[in-house]
């Protein structure tokens, strides 16, 4: 096992720069998720760690050793691909044992390690099958088995769950997390799904347009997003952003939206009176309350455990996620309120979080 350090790493294809100086520290045994929308450079970064892409600038160290010019097979990493990349002409056993065979390991050694990995992943009964005879979840497991057999310093996962159906994805998510808790191998995991990131990571790296927006523990990013991008990306349904102005009010402040919606804010930044701001509030933090601000109901989506209400204030859609079973009719006016401590304020120009 080893730590991974990414120092000011850049990547350009010809004149087009896709990664502009990324710094990430991954501690030994840590599970780090790189998350971001498609095209943000997260997969490219992972492939640079793997050695499948050249590094244009900066340095990557694995276990303290600079690996910029080290070929993939000498980096002691294992990678799980989005499409699994199982060798179609080899059985599950041969797929898992391939790397050992290339290293000219003993037959008994291969046998031992493959059956160990198969045991962990519940693949014992499938060792003689070919990939095409397996279901999506089984293939996924074989791909992980291939990685485990090598007992590498670092596991790399490139969107491994995105080809699975929703139910299986949740199950495999748990399996991967459990596997990591058991093996404690340093893991870098790429996904565009923030729920995967939240549920699995020790540390999340949010990327956007080739830069790192924020790095932190899942709940840190959720509670204290550094900017509007992270605030909007983490959490589902996404945070509501409402444009408006602040007016101070003794201890706290009152936020007034352009459409006339007013919400109390616990801590206003200094000298923000009358300044334009963007208020962010998560749908799950809004409650239906008799004393709140009035909004018009557009759509009601009951989900059993909670109810999602799309409401409108002026031209602004506000998504609310209520714990209680409120069932307003479309067109009806309801009042919504929120804990003043749970709202976020952003600078409308830079998108940065305004410090209180």
């Amino acid at each position, binding site marked *: 096992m080893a730590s991974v350090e990414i120092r000011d790493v850049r990547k350009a294809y010809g004149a087009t720069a896709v990664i502009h100086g990324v710094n990430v520290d991954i501690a030994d045994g840590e599970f780090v998720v790189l998350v971001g929308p498609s095209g943000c450079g997260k997969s490219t970064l992972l492939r640079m760690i793997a050695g499948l892409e050249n590094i244009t600038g900066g340095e990557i160290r694995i276990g303290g050793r600079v690996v910029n010019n080290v*070929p993939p097979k000498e980096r002691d990493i294992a990678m799980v691909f989005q499409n699994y990349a199982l060798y*179609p002409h080899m059985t599950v056993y041969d797929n898992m044992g391939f790397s050992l065979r290339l290293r000219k390991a003993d037959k008994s050694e291969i046998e031992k390690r493959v059956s160990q990995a198969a045991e962990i992943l519940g693949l014992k009964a499938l060792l003689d099958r*070919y990939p095409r005879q397996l279901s999506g979840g089984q293939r996924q497991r074989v791909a992980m088995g291939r990685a485990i057999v090598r007992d590498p310093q670092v596991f790399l996962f490139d969107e491994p769950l995105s080809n699975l159906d929703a139910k299986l994805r949740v199950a495999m998510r748990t399996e991967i997390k459990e596997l990591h808790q058991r093996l404690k191998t340093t893991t870098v995991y790429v996904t565009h799904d923030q729920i995967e990131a939240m549920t699995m990571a020790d540390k999340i790296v949010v990327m956007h347009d080739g830069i790192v927006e924020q790095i932190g523990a899942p709940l840190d990013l959720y509670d204290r997003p550094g900017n509007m991008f992270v605030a909007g990306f983490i959490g589902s349904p996404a945070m509501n952003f409402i444009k408006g102005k602040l007016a101070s009010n003794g201890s706290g402040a009152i936020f007034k939206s352009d459409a006339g919606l007013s919400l109390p804010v616990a801590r206003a930044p200094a000298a923000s009176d009358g300044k334009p701001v963007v208020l962010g509030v998560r749908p799950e933090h809004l409650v239906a309350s008799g004393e709140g601000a009035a909004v018009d109901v557009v759509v009601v989506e009951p989900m059993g455990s909670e109810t999602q209400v799309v409401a409108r204030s002026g031209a602004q859609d506000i998504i609310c996620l209520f714990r209680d079973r409120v069932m307003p009719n479309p067109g009806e006016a309801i009042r919504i309120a929120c804990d003043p401590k749970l709202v976020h304020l952003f600078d409308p120009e830079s998108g940065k979080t305004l410090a209180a």
Partner: protein
Amino acid sequence: MTDATAIATTAGGRTTWERLRSHRDWLGFWFMAPAAAILILFLAYPLGLGVWLSFTDAKIGRPGHFIGLDNYDWLSDDSVFWGSVFFTCFYTLVASSIKFAIGLYLALLLNKNLPFKALLRSIVLIPFVVPTVLSAIAFWWIFDSQFSIISWSLVKLGLIDRYIDFLGNPWNARWCLIFANIWRGVPFVAITLLAGLQTVSPSLYEAATIDGASRWQNFRHITYPLLTPIIAVVMTFSVLFTFTDFQLIWAMTRGGPVNATHLMATLSFQRAILGGSLGEGAAISTAMIPFLLAAIMVSWFGLQKRKWQQGGDND
């Protein structure tokens, strides 16, 4: 009319004709009929006729009589026939192997990210696009005993002092024909194998690279096994085309010098059409069938062995 007959015969139930007409395969039969008719008329019938002719003493202008295996008996003592069998096998074996090697090499080369990729791929196809007879005539000139550009260049370079007799000497002529056949056949192999290479997912190479495979091991363990189904098909076709080659030989040497470059196909044509002995020519053609069947069987059973690419969820 049909209706009238049908009604007339439907006394105590449905007639056979009616039951046949209402059967679900009836329409299917009519959809298949044109294709079947074409196959029977233009493939099965001439093949059958050819085999039948080989058992007769038919000559042009004279319908033959059944003479059993006399033609084959006669051929078994004919050194020209055995010469053509030898050269056909030699020609097929050497040309096909070299075509495979060069074709695979070119395909691997063209599968890389080269500048002007599309242009290079089209250039490779040129020998395949030129009509065979045209390229054969060009080769005839290239190998001409007096006007050969190869001899001319070598003389000018001072490497030789006499023109080479390319097509006048048996072994020279054989190698020249094999060369021309390779030149013409490589594009087919190369482009088809290239198409096969492009179906191999690049992530397999990446996975293998991370698993520690060198470039040779990537080829040996990933590319080659995944390409075998295509190789089997391409090489079957290549062997069949080469074995039955006619145009190239006929345009360049007509089987000469002294029957040294006769393939079974050209010898059959010479005996049957030019010589008029239809029965004997047909026997030579029919003698090709076992060889062709053997080639097909090899690739057929080769294809069947690959369990990994066959359907079925469980075994």
